């Protein structure tokens, strides 16, 4: 569906069911350069179990009008604008990579709207290699190849994928390649300059779930350990065989963890 935020057109899928704001809400946030299709094997599951599902394309990504937001703080403000515009509370946020920084910032500033947070493959901050930012600014195809090359584990590189006939890697290349090139650089700079993750994490008090990947080369173990250490009583899981693109690489395991956590902490009728 489409809606307007401050005069800009926003696209979001609702998991194949009409969005019913009176149901508990699950918002899925994608990472740098990606879009709503990242969450296809999770969003429909919740939508068909009496949750109001919202999977937006962040501004400047795929079907949402640009420009991209230039800071994590701005993304958190935008997310709150979305919640206000749609008049939704009781939100479970599920976030991946850059989306996790947005979720941390948003939940720390607008805690009353939040019922639970699920953070997938992220640290407290995401310092970005200058070479990657340079590539994103000047050679986006190279930057996309670098990100997907590091992002996927062996299965991804061998074009395996949970959906029969679909190549996760090629799909990722199409999505990232289809976005306006400068948007990727904007995302990466927003990640690189975000410095409030520790403060935000320490403020959070609601149910928090952290799902990590054993073969993550984008969010290394030291960074994810730091995130966990600053959260209040998080539920932590590590899926050993997955790379950074965990929701795509091991959707069944990921969905099972999300299901147990969200069903417990944000119960639907």
């Amino acid at each position, binding site marked *: 569906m489409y809606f307007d935020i401050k005069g800009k057109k926003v696209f979001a899928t609702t998991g194949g069911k009409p969005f019913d704001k009176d149901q508990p809400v699950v918002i899925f946030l994608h990472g740098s350069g990606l879009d709503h299709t990242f969450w*296809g094997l999770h969003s429909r599951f919740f939508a068909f179990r009496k949750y109001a599902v919202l999977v937006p394309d962040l501004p400047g990504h795929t079907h949402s009008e640009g420009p991209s937001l230039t800071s994590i703080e701005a993304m958190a403000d935008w997310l709150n604008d979305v919640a206000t515009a749609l008049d939704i509370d009781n939100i479970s946020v599920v976030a991946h990579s850059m989306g996790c920084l947005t979720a941390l910032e948003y939940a720390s500033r607008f805690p009353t709207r939040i019922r639970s947070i699920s953070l997938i493959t992220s640290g407290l901050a995401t310092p970005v290699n200058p070479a990657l930012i340079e590539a994103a600014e000047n050679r986006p195809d190279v930057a996309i190849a670098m990100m997907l090359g590091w992002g996927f584990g062996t299965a991804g590189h061998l074009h395996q994928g949970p959906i029969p006939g679909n190549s996760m890697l*090629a799909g990722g290349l*199409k999505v990232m390649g289809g976005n306006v090139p400068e948007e990727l650089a904007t995302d990466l700079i927003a990640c690189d300059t975000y410095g409030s993750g520790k403060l935000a994490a320490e403020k959070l008090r609601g149910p928090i779930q952290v799902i990590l990947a054993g073969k993550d080369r984008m969010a290394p173990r030291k960074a994810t350990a730091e995130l966990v250490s600053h959260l209040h009583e998080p539920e932590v899981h590590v899926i050993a065989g997955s790379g950074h693109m965990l929701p795509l690489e091991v959707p069944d395991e990921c969905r099972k963890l999300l299901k147990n956590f969200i069903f417990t902490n944000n119960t639907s009728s």
Partner: protein
Amino acid sequence: MSRFYHFDTIALHAGQAVDGEFGARATPIYQTTSYVFPDTDTASSTFNLERSGHVYSRITNPTVGVLEQRIAALEGGSAAVCTASGMAATYSAIIAILSQGDHIVASSQMYGGNISLMKNTLPRFGITASFVDPMDIDGFRAAVQDNTRLIYGELIGNPGLDILDLEAIAEIAGEHQIPFMVDATFNMPYLCRCFDYGVNMTIHSVTKWMGGHGVAIGGVVVDGGNFDWGATDKYPTITEPYAPFSGMNIWEEFGPSAFATRIRCEAMRDIGASMAPMTAFLLLQGLETLSLRMDKHISSTKVLLEYLQAHDQVAWVNHPDLPSHSGHELALKYLPKGAGSIVSFGVKGGREAGKPFIENVELASHLANVGDAKTLIIHPATTTHSRIDAEALVAAGITEDMVRLSVGLENVEDIKADFEIGFRAAKRISDT
């Protein structure tokens, strides 16, 4: 790893995870119709595309799935759907996006089955086609109508071997927000990856060079993932709610693989021209050596082109690698490794001399196939293209004396020696 695997490696490994139970290195043949669900929730959610998984082998099968992911990877597409044959792939792809009243602009130089489908069969269901000379770019532009929903062609036309200017046609398709579909059987991704030139989806008869051994019939549709279905209201089968799947909007849910998903949800379910697991296994064996075989096919083709051009009994030789070919410059652009291993030529003495040539060669097999490991020959006017009318025959570049040669992997000196036997028989006719 920040770089991606190369073609040869993908051809061997893509799509296959080593069997977790027994460690089988080869792709197992999952010869099963259906799959046990652990619980009712898994069953219902798999049916409803809330989760991945197999339900019934008409729709998906693990062995077939390996072949699909491997071909998608080789082609650079987001997804692939394998079918019972190349023609099943073409039909499944067309009905995924076209309905009654829609129109196709197609190259006039295509495999006879493609022409017959668009000229005879689809019109019965209200889908019509206009055919355009593949070299006439302005003709493609002029043929586009308000109800045109697809542009279709073959990069290397069968059997005339004209070369379609992919970028020029893609530009026309883009101007009209129409997808551009190419039957890429003759070029395969090893010789040309069509998506790099703006093509939106490809069709392959996997039976041919991909399988390469003449033992199994199969087809595939590959979704380039590069057509913006949502930018136009011309494709409601992709962008409108789909009732059989709870009103799902395929474009919204599946993005770059929306087209492949529609084929899976509709053509495989409602028509069911699916590939058998054993077929997928056989075709995978061939696909593993595609690059090795193609290098040999191409090198032998070059030798035979020289041989045929110099032969007294040959009236003419047609292949895009020859500078005399009208599509030579385009072939250099799109097919730098070589323009395939199909050669057409005329035997001096016309149709009457061609007959003894075909009947007297011994290694070369007289049959209706191409892309086998073995050398094949046929007379198109009386066989593969016999069901199209005289006008279409001319448009397809087929003459009465044309012999179509599919160059095999035998020692090329043995092929030449075999042809000498045929040419001696032909000479006896042409001299009388």
